[in-house]
């Protein structure tokens, strides 16, 4: 049984962080102004800054974070491995390859390129890891290999691209929410509830699947179908987040584990993973938007990458102490 109190605290932290992100920046907005703007009673610079500039960015951070958290929980549950998250098994790198190819060859259809790249990579990992059945550790190892190859291809593609294309691609590749628009938020806000509903419907058999293939089959779980649907949902959730925000590391890896520990849940805990993912990315973007001295804004992907390094080090220390 998960504890309800931490879950409530997580849910309450989200609007607080969101309001903070909407208010802060080069043009600070007071709380009454902010609430007025959100209620649609503002004009001029306040409306421009809050609704046109900051709201899409905060909205994307929350939705993409939730999508990544869910995707991570799905993949970790199916691979039965805390390292089996989409960023580790190469989906991010593959989506980046797709985006690069789109930028260099095509007319810059980054979104569809990233989606396609993510799907193709997922399919490649799945087929390479398949040996008359799916084994979690093998999927993770194959994924790490595919990820390395995709990263090598990405470096080569960047080197061959024209300078201005390469610079644009590198910015996208760092994973950034700078300059997010309402038009980007739309598809995400529409797709996320549908995908989340899919995860909700699948959650019970997925959690049962963690007991092992034989046991869950004997308990009536259609193992192959549930696993395929779960992987499909995870791939689409990752691709969606990556296509809008670029390849963002760490959130999918850490959010399910942090969420599970915070709420005391067992196995895959999808709601805590989604809430933690949203909170993590929103917080990371808050830091990214403030920037560093000398650099006005940094890509949020850089912040999550640093957090990811700290997280992995902490995990290693914890495991070593056992």
């Amino acid at each position, binding site marked *: 049984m998960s504890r309800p109190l931490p879950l409530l605290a997580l849910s309450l932290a989200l609007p607080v962080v969101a309001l903070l992100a909407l208010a802060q920046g080069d043009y600070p907005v007071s709380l009454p102004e902010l609430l007025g703007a959100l209620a649609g009673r503002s004009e001029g610079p306040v409306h421009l800054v809050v609704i046109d500039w900051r709201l899409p960015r905060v909205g994307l951070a929350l939705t993409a974070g939730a999508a990544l958290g869910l995707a991570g929980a799905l993949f970790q549950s199916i691979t039965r491995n805390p390292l089996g998250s989409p960023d580790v098994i190469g989906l991010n790198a593959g989506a980046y390859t797709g985006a690069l190819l789109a930028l260099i060859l095509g007319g810059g259809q980054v979104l569809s390129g990233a989606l396609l790249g993510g799907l193709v990579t997922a399919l490649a990992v799945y087929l390479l890891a398949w040996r008359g059945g799916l084994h979690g550790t093998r999927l993770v190892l194959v994924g790490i290999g595919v990820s390395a190859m995709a990263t090598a291809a990405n470096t080569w593609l960047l080197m061959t691209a024209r300078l201005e294309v390469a610079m644009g691609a590198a910015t996208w590749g760092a994973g950034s929410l700078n300059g997010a628009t309402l038009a980007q938020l739309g598809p995400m806000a529409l797709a996320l509830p549908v995908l989340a509903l899919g995860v909700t419907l699948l959650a019970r058999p997925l*959690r049962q699947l*963690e*007991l*092992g293939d034989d046991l869950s089959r*004997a308990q*009536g*779980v259609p193992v192959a179908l549930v696993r395929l649907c779960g992987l499909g949902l995870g791939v689409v959730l990752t691709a969606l987040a990556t296509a809008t925000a670029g390849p963002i590391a760490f959130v999918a890896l850490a959010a399910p584990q942090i969420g599970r520990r915070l709420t005391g849940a*067992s*196995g895959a805990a999808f709601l805590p993973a989604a809430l933690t993912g949203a909170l993590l990315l929103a917080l990371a973007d808050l830091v990214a938007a403030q920037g560093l001295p000398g650099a006005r804004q940094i890509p949020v992907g850089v912040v999550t990458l640093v957090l990811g390094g700290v997280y992995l080090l902490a995990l290693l220390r914890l495991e070593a102490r056992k």
Partner: protein
Amino acid sequence: MTDTPLIAEGLVLGYDGKTVLHDLSLRLPGGQFTAIVGPNACGKSTLLRALARLLTPHRGRVLLHGQPLERIAPRQMARQVALLPQNPIAPDGITVRDLVARGRYPHQTLLRPASAGDATAVEQAMARLQITDLATRRMADLSGGQRQRVWIAMVLAQDTQVILLDEPTTWLDIAHQVELMTLLAQLAREGRTIVAVLHELNHAFRYADHLVALRDGRLMAEGAPSQTVTPALIEAVFDLPCVITPDPLTGAPMVVPHA
């Protein structure tokens, strides 16, 4: 229960081009404790997995109450037959009560996730295995013996007429082994059909009502242990010369190997 809930008819089964079970036919008596014994790699686990419909036979079929397994819906099957495999996996951070509750899965649906009946079945199963005081502990913090009792409780909570167990005593010390064998015999007396793959022959002969001896995927003997166990059978199945002597407490056959 005097019927025969599970019947295997001419099972031929194998993987990777190798045949594991050769034309195997069996009747597993209802309300009895059946022990499946045989040397390593004789097809015991394969037989158990075929009975649980985890494997589809190349030829032959398994009948559950006269109905071929492939014609029974997975959920219906799971409400009648439970399986405890050799190496079940405990999800990260799971507590004893949560794990036992996972046994209720076939009785729940999306629209009716958990009921009072489920909670009662879980509490009863934990009481039966004497793990009620461990209910809130995490699986990772328990000893091997305690963990195995939790798994058995989970299978009991599934509340099926037939229970299949693959080497359930492997991780247990002798006292816990005897405890588990007593429990399985008791469950059979209450009307459940218990089928267990066992390694410890003397336990199998003493506690089981019905014995199935396999070698190289073929049936070597079938029947009550007191009527089937002979030195010749043990030698034929295990290549082990031995003497059979009545166990001093119950008179059940007991294997004493030569040198």
